[in-house]
């Protein structure tokens, strides 16, 4: 069984922070609306590797009452701790296909370039000015 990097209380803290930092907009879902967000928070925190103890510490120092003003103050007073928490929640959020799709970013496997694309790019003479100038040592 895999050991989770964060306990339930820490996950709840991150969920609350994400609710403030990443609301939805016209196209993009709110972090709290992503069904898989808890799983993504675990995955994000595990990916921090040697930074994980720093995340535990940052969460210990987080204010008890979390709202916009509390996070503004935290970001000013403890910028490194805030940055790590912000990276973790936004890193988890942008693992979600729905969040990536909303900004037009690809998800899933990639594909090879179209066969003729490189030749097409050069076919219009884009290199001609370079060749005409030559190169002086």
């Amino acid at each position, binding site marked *: 069984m895999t050991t989770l990097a964060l306990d339930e209380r820490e996950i709840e803290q991150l969920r609350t922070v994400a609710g403030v930092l990443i609301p939805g907009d016209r196209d993009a879902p709110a972090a709290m609306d992503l069904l898989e967000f808890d799983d993504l928070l675990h995955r994000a925190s595990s990916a921090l590797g040697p930074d994980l103890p720093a995340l535990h510490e940052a969460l210990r120092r987080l204010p008890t009452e979390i709202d916009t003003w509390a996070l*503004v103050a935290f970001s000013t007073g403890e910028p490194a701790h805030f940055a790590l928490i912000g990276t973790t929640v936004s890193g988890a959020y942008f693992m979600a296909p729905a969040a990536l799709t909303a900004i037009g970013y690809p998800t899933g496997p990639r594909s090879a370039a179209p066969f003729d694309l490189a030749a097409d790019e050069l076919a219009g003479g884009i290199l001609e000015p370079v060749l005409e100038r030559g190169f002086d040592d």
Partner: protein
Amino acid sequence: MSSVENVDVLIVGSGPSGSVTAHTLASQGFSVLCLEQGEWFDSSDFPGGKPEYELLTRQLWDTDPHLQGRLRDYPMNLDECDVAPAMFSAVGGSSVLFGAQWMRLRPTDFRIRSVDGIADDWPISYEDLAPFYDEIDAQIGVAGVSGDPAYPDHDLPMPPHPMGRTGVQMAEAMNRLGWHWWPGSNAIPSSAFKHMGQCVRWGVCERGCPAGAKASFDIAYWPHATKAGARLIAGARVARITLDSRGRANGAIWIDREGGEHFVGANTVVLAANGVGTSRLLLMSDDQHSDGLANSSGLVGKNLMMHPNAPAIGVYDDALQAWNGPAGQLLYSLEFYETDLARGFYRGAKWNLMPYPGVLSVLNLFDDLPFEQRWGTGLHQLSRYAGRASVMYANIDDLPEETNRVTLDPELTDSSGLPAPRVRYRFSENTRRNLKFQSDRMVEAHEAAGAAHVFRGPIYPSGHVLGTARMGNDPATSVVDSYGRSHDVPNLFIVDGSVMVTGAAVNPTATIAAFALRTARHIAETANQSAAVTA
């Protein structure tokens, strides 16, 4: 201590130069053993295809070995370093994480004493290396466009990768500026080739290719080397090179993962452990030489060059699809490569344009914005710049200086208890002026291409560690001769970037590999004459 065996050729380090040497000599019938302190990696190990890719690159897959936290790496004292060396201990060496930007030195790079009156000329010329460049290119499937007017004519074996919208937009801007550029040449075959897969443009080449499509030397060379009979032991950390009573190298002592010591005997020893690792090993191998092995010149570890790399990142309103690789270089420019003293410094830089993939990486560019613009609905607006950013890097031609050097730290040790290297590297005034000039011009390039925002990034950790065992004809002013043979120890060779007399400004791996091939051929050809190798 257990004695394993005796071999014709012992190679320390399995990166580009070590693998080329192993393949070349094993193919000619020599018994070859390579010792590598790192491990084998598989393309499925790499982070680039995983959803948490950007988080993994913060530490576990950072290019800085200090942040990776792996015992196979040796620590370094970098208290006096203006830029951190980037390394990766693995079969294939740092090429596992290199960008595969495949560049030859220009002919002038071999003779800047003659051209500019500074530093020293190399004891070899472009023409000496050209056939070996060609041979390596063909072996690993270099992709690009022949005919760059900045170079003597040479063919590239594979057609180029597309530049994509990112590259075309910048190329058009460079044409408007009247500046040199050329489609990127990359050690990434443009179609499946030998043991390498098809590039699917993940754009994450510098963290290991998830598709196995990049010519890192674990897959581009080692399968061929082992088929030819070369053997490789991973997880083998070499503690020192040993000498016989005549002062000739006769093998090495190495330490396995459990701390067990072994000895392997060899008729010839080849060092291929990069500009830090090779000089560290020479300095540790001092049984008969108080200043380290092969160091009668006193130059082992000195003249370290690292190509400080200044980035300028452009963020565009245009939908560039900048998640598409390779990265790799989409294009490069040598416009500001050669010396123009009107700029206030010697030499110049090579530029390369790369995609700037990821969402967090783009968001981080805006970390200085007020909270309400960086977070909340502001985050969604900023995140739409993902896929619309590119980065131009300037690879600076730093010059050799004896004060930039590798020594042994008196206190710090690796996990085997061996002395760690202490690396001192400070920017000269010439380098600072070069960095400033190139950064300003790169900003102009992005602006000409229509960037909405341009950011100057911090100096990037450098995987180019060069010059610490320079080659030359005079034993008083060089460590090895023009074939990488130690002036002091005739059966000891160095084939990595340590031998470079000057660093040039292009990515050095093509030159390192070509030099290794030339040296390996020389070892084979002279084996019977010199008894350097008794096959």
